[in-house]
């Protein structure tokens, strides 16, 4: 509700005599991007002011990735959307028809200015000796993962484990399925979002391993102190593309297309990429990446497209009664 009000505010301002005044952009984003845009927005404002002499105001709205997409579909006046999976922006294109379905081709790198990947976070000293995905299926290891039905974060973890099992010697779909089922048998709590899972692991002290984004690990370090946990990089992981797009219907109505497009393009500039790296998001820019290479250990990665793309994955794995639901039902019976 609050977000709606905030969305209305600039609209009201624009409709009054202030029309020629500062352009206002609303960036609708997901939960853990808060810190990044807190740093990025001032950088962009400075750049825009220097380039055009205009002031631009950027407002932020944060929440779970899919609920945020739903708000946009239902009319939240977002100029730009910055999500954690392509399927959320696809939904805005298909259900809301607020932007063209080929949105991902309008910007470089599949419209993802930076990436992250799923890492394993363990307790100090790694008492259970966790080194790779297969350690997570051992009996007696408790793994905290957000619910793949409600969180993109959980979906990436599920897919990372699935891909790991597929790529093992002699790996096939049946084995991948058994592997993921064994993994989810070790999950004691399914939080609805990534931040919830972090709280369960760090604050409630539940579980031996938390699987989450690499940049969330940095947030945990800042919030809870670096001495309380260790980050384990698995032998292979999934590259999480974090896509962005302009919402055409809104910017054309508000007349903010120029600012909105530039706001996103600037994410690829050396300055934008540096802010990303400082927030532990893996930059696309090779020079910036090289500069911060120390904090990004190299991990063998596969992508969502290697597994068939979000649309096929949704139908195969996450829709109702698809593989994830079948696994969950079978696991519940075994208990």
């Amino acid at each position, binding site marked *: 509700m609050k977000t709606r009000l905030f969305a209305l505010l600039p609209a009201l301002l624009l409709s009054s005599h202030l029309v020629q005044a500062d352009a206002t952009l609303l960036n609708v984003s997901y939960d853990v991007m808060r810190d990044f845009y807190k740093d990025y927005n001032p950088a962009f404002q400075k750049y825009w002011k220097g380039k055009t002499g205009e002031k631009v105001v950027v407002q932020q709205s944060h929440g779970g990735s899919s609920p945020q997409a739903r708000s946009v579909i239902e009319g939240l006046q977002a100029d730009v959307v910055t999500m954690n999976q392509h399927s959320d922006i696809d939904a805005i294109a298909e259900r809301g028809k607020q932007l063209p379905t080929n949105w991902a081709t309008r910007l470089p790198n599949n419209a993802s200015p930076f990436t992250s990947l799923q890492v394993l976070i363990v307790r100090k000293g790694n008492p259970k000796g966790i080194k790779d995905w297969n350690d997570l299926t051992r009996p007696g290891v408790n793994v905290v993962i957000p619910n793949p*039905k409600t969180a993109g974060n959980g979906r990436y973890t599920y897919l990372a484990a699935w891909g790991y099992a597929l790529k093992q010697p002699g790996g096939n779909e049946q084995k991948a399925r058994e592997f993921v089922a064994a993994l989810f048998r070790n999950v*004691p*709590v399914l939080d*609805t979002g990534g931040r919830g899972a972090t709280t369960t692991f760090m604050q409630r*002290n*539940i579980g031996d391993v938390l699987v989450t984004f690499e940049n969330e690990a940095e947030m945990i370090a800042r919030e809870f102190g670096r001495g309380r946990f260790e980050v384990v990089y698995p032998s292979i992981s999934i590259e999480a593309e974090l896509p962005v797009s302009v919402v055409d219907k809104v910017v054309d109505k508000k007349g903010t297309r120029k600012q909105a497009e530039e706001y996103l393009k600037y994410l690829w500039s050396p300055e934008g990429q540096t802010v990303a790296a400082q927030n532990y998001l893996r930059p696309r820019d090779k020079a910036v990446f090289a500069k911060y290479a120390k904090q990004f250990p190299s991990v063998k990665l596969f992508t969502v497209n290697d597994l068939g793309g979000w649309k096929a994955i949704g139908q195969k794995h996450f829709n*109702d009664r698809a593989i994830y639901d079948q696994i969950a039902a079978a696991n*519940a019976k075994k*208990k």
Partner: protein
Amino acid sequence: MTFKKPSVLPGFNLSLGYTLFYLGLIVLLPLSALVYKTAGLEWADFWSTVSDPRVVASYRLTFGASFIAALLNLVFGLLVAWVLVRYSFPGKRLIDAMVDLPFALPTAVAGIALATLYAPNGWIGKHFAEDGLIGELLGKEIKLAFTPLGIVIALIFISLPFVVRTVQPVLEDLEIELEEAASSLGASRWQIFSRVILPTIWPALLTGFALAFARAIGEYGSVVFIAGNMPMESEITPLLIISKLEQFDYLGATAIAVVMLAASFAMLLVINLLQWWTAKRLGRRT
């Protein structure tokens, strides 16, 4: 009763018209939108959505946990109301005000606070761990948070005021003469309570129970933080509705919502009938 019957109070047509309009706008319109939206679903799809084993398990949990919570509040809520009405002690006002806190607190705050308390490392939860006070006494760990037990705890918390606040005024209005008469006729304390007091407050108790139960069924915010949300085990129905929305499955979400609506309405109706019946029975007796 006919509509023509003249009343001593003027303005019947106007006030009835307003009542119907208001109820229609505030209650009926959104609910009919819900049913209307579900009508876009084929019967077979509707049925397979609402009879999915995982959804059925969530009905069982939601209605079961809500029933237990409302039942416990029926007993302990009555006790609280009784103490607040019948005794006077220092700090009574404060306790009276505290009863309303679950009303006022944002449910998410309640959920996080409860999860912190009852988690295995929380103030209360740690005593139930294997090496905790109560855990050692019983020889095993009892998990409170992240189990159905945690859900019941959250529901007890949020539904307590309903029983207390409906019973309290009736207890206050209870005529002391009735009890005195019963006593002078030789009734024991227990007989006075069970034969005189309980029948009088019974309708109010039932109302409180119904309100608490209805509130608990719809509760989402506080429960998701303490439930653990495991499929088939600790997933409440409102969570499944949200997770359907998360997948942009509006129809599936409304289908489950309609089932909950129908079930809740049926139950409230039964409780209202029961209440009407007891009131009538009592009315005849006195």
